[in-house]
């Protein structure tokens, strides 16, 4: 490990850092004085210098999130403008330094921060795609979620989709009048489409594919390419996906190959871009909870948690706010840690699929997953989309008895006492599954020879690429939000941060394995707390709260796949902030793909699927 921990005497609190920053750039950095906001506003022309200073001098080396907000219309503190919001952290722990840069809406342009943090790459492309902000100096400013040639930048506030009804939900057509009709009945084309009125039909060709290949150097001159034996060769462009069994969904990679070696790889995504954020801005705050389930659909409980934390931060800005009860926190941690185990079982299983152990290990892992899902179903009402957490509480307490099977083969569904079921699951079944996995796989020659030294990512690169979760910790950076920036009751729980220093696929596998063991350790501490807090309330008067105080909040949790953050802005009309002005998801699966091209360069095609598997992505979250 090459990282040098910053000297604690030199590195102070966030307030010190902001004071330091303002002293260094007296004319270009000012406090964000809007109601409920924090951090600093940086003038756009000095953004690059300020960012370098934040990274190098103030040691905020990890750029967690970079996203845009469109402030348009009445009720804001200044004129209409676009804003980029950056959240930077220290990998030694602590809370965020938030800095913002503003630009004009019509000619939106800001300097790109890719030269400071390469993790800004995809996030800036997303801001260009959805908000139309140009980033000067970005090496590859193409659309990322929509296709090249799409009309307009859909996340702008004045861009209306074809099925647009009104700014707020519930729509009048649903409530209180309730005249339900299908939106397509009112559309001339009968479907969800909208064309610009000056559509040029004579030149209607699909350019989305050809635009994709710009920068790939197609049509290489063969005469210049000879290998060591003097044989003339050519490089080949190969597409993998969006329909491919090893891309974990509708993900696509475009690779340039020299023989079987990858010389360039570019991830192509957006095939599951289902407009989570645009829909989320029309929804009420409460509506968004079931939508978060569908982000990382393997671990929906963790998604709920991040979002309610963000909204609880906003609620805390109000006068009358009481934090969730202790039992609520216990239940949340119980659910989240079970989700983490499901997530890692699934991740390891699918990674083994990619290594060639096609579906046999997965079937064993699914057994355990089914039992956990039975528990979720009994508690929340649904196997996968739990929709369990509420602001200041959870949906319901544990039921007395639950229905599940002991043995998936030849067994009826039986009735169990919930605590007994949990105790057996946590103390016996899950550890047994993990031990079994460990025994068969960790020392397997095939797993080791396929994965050791492959897909290497150094610690510096992992931080610079904003990698999160097992990808970051597998590279030797012991950064786990549960410890680095604690939330819920994690400070009082006893567990270790899983970390491996090799930075290869095997290290990531080991991190997941250790992390599952640590989760079991946490769950074992949760069980007595469940008994102890029995009877305590788990609901809150804020759970269905309609009005949210003004301000911004960034709630983040350590989800199975990495840091999951929600940037929620409550702004605009002071009387009615029933729905978020901006609702952004910092998706670990999306940002963890930024280093994919870097990690794959020089490896063989057969390893690419395994490297992708070792990152562990889920497309609902990647594309949102």
């Amino acid at each position, binding site marked *: 490990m090459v990282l040098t921990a910053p000297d604690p005497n030199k590195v102070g609190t966030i307030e010190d850092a902001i004071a330091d920053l303002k002293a260094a750039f007296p004319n270009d950095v000012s406090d964000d004085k809007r109601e409920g906001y924090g951090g600093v506003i940086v003038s756009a022309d000095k953004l690059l210098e300020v960012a370098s200073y934040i990274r190098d001098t103030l040691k905020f080396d990890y750029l967690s999130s970079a996203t845009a907000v469109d402030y348009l219309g009445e009720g804001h503190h200044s004129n209409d403008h676009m804003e980029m919001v950056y959240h930077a952290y220290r990998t030694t722990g602590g809370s965020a330094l938030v800095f913002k840069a503003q630009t004009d809406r019509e000619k939106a342009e800001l300097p790109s921060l890719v030269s400071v943090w390469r993790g800004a790459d995809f996030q800036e492309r997303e801001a260009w795609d959805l908000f139309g902000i140009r980033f000067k100096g970005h090496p590859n400013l193409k659309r990322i979620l*929509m*296709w090249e*040639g799409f*009309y307009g930048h*859909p996340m702008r506030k004045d861009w209306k*989709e*074809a*099925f*647009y*009804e*009104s700014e707020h939900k519930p729509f*009048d*057509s649903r409530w209180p009048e309730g*005249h339900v*009709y299908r*939106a*397509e*009945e*009112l*559309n*001339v*084309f*009968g*479907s*969800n489409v*909208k*064309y610009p*009125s000056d*559509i040029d*039909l004579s030149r*209607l*060709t*699909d350019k989305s594919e050809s635009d994709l290949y710009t920068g790939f150097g197609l049509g290489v001159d063969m005469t210049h390419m000879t290998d060591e034996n003097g044989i003339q060769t050519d490089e080949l462009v190969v597409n993998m996906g969006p329909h*491919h*069994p090893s891309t974990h969904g*509708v993900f696509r990679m475009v690779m340039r190959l020299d023989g079987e070696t990858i010389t360039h790889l570019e991830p192509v995504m*957006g*095939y*599951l*871009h*289902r*407009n*989570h954020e645009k*829909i989320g801005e*029309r929804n009420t705050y409460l509506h968004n909870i*079931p*939508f978060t389930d569908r982000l990382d659909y*393997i671990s929906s409980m963790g998604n709920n948690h991040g979002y309610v934390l963000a909204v609880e931060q906003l609620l805390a800005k109000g006068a009358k706010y009481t934090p969730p009860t202790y039992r609520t926190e216990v239940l949340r941690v119980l659910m989240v840690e079970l989700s983490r185990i499901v997530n890692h079982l699934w991740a390891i299983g699918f990674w083994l699929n990619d290594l060639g152990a096609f579906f046999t290990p*997965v079937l064993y892992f*699914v*057994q355990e*997953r089914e039992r956990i899902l039975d528990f979720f179903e009994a508690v929340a009402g649904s*196997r*996968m*989309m739990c929709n369990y957490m509420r602001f200041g509480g959870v949906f319901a307490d544990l039921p007395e008895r639950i229905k599940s*099977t002991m043995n*998936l*083969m030849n067994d009826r569904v039986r009735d169990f006492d919930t605590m007994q079921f949990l105790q057996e699951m946590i103390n016996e079944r899950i550890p047994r599954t993990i031990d079994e996995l460990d025994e068969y796989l960790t020392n397997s020659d095939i797993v080791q020879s396929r994965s050791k030294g492959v897909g290497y990512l150094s610690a510096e690169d992992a931080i610079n690429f904003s990698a999160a979760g097992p990808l970051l910790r597998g590279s030797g950076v012991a950064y786990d939000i549960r410890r680095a920036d604690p939330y819920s009751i994690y400070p009082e729980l006893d567990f270790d941060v899983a970390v491996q220093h090799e930075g290869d696929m095997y290290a990531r596998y080991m991190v997941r394995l250790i992390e599952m063991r640590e989760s079991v350790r946490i769950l074992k501490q949760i069980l007595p707390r469940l008994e102890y807090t029995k009877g305590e309330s788990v609901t809150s008067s804020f759970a269905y709260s309609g009005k949210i105080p003004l301000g911004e909040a960034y709630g983040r949790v350590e989800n199975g796949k990495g840091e999951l953050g929600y940037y929620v802005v409550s702004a605009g009309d002071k009387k009615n902030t029933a729905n978020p002005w901006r609702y952004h998801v910092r998706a670990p699966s999306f940002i963890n793909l930024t280093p994919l091209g870097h990690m794959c360069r020089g490896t063989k095609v057969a390893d690419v699927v395994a490297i992708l598997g070792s990152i562990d992505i889920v*497309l*609902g979250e990647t594309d949102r």
Partner: protein
Amino acid sequence: MELNLAELNRTQYPIPAELQNNVAITSLSKIYNWGRRNSMWPMLFGLACCAIEMIATASSRFDFSRFGMEVMRATPRQSDLMIVSGTVTKKMVVPIVRLYNQMPEPKYVLAMGACASGGGPFKEGYNVVSGIDKYLPVDVYVPGCPPTPQALLYGLIALQKKIDGQSIITSDDVPWYGVGPSDPTPIPILGPDIIDPRQMDMIRRQAEQAARGGTFAVRELPAVAKTAAALPAQKAAPAAAAAAPAAGTMTPEEERRAAALARKAARAAKSAGEAAPAAAPTAAAPLPGGSKPWEESHDIREQRKAAALARKAARASKSEG
């Protein structure tokens, strides 16, 4: 699945008692469908959340290989069934249609979950197709978000029942027993927004209208609805009968709401009034010209049904002659 001869044996022809466990006389359709229904190979193809439940259905607890579906094929060329398991986006529908066109016939589509059936919770999204049936003919819809593995199994069994009912002697209910290859589904174009090639004429008409200074009427109300919108939105009034000029004082929201109400009333009146096949223009009588672009059928099932009817009629007239 074990072949049950007694079940298969549907004939008047008497079989001697000692042969009844060895010989069965049945129709070609029946034995052919029996083979097909029990070897439905789905495509290994997951779109979103539903794909996870599809994997759960394939794994040991639910195990759809009990129904002859154990072999999931990653290539469309070896699969019989496309399980559309998740939200279909505009960007993804292009490859999906390509994959469907590459599947050999007979082929089936199962829309798994709310999104694939009709857009689901993401329907209003700008990149979301409101259901795969906008592009492909769907055989079975499975509701749920996501459907439980039990629901998916039920859908698959429903598909088997559907196959049982199909006959190879007529090409009316399924296109692939006709003569020659059936037409591929046109592949959508990713232009300024997604373009269904079957709608090109309509887009052209709209663009011409816009070029003449008219509105590019993406959001304009149908004429029927507009006239109805001018009426006081009374549920009792059989709408669209008396055409009053649009008042123009209502907000677009109110207009749309009234229009929807009126259309509902008109539909109700229509279904109550006449049971005859809806060949003639219905309540839309006050419309000038009679061209109703919003009522044009883009549903491939409707088109196929119409084509089958036409073929049937042609055959009938031929045999008469």
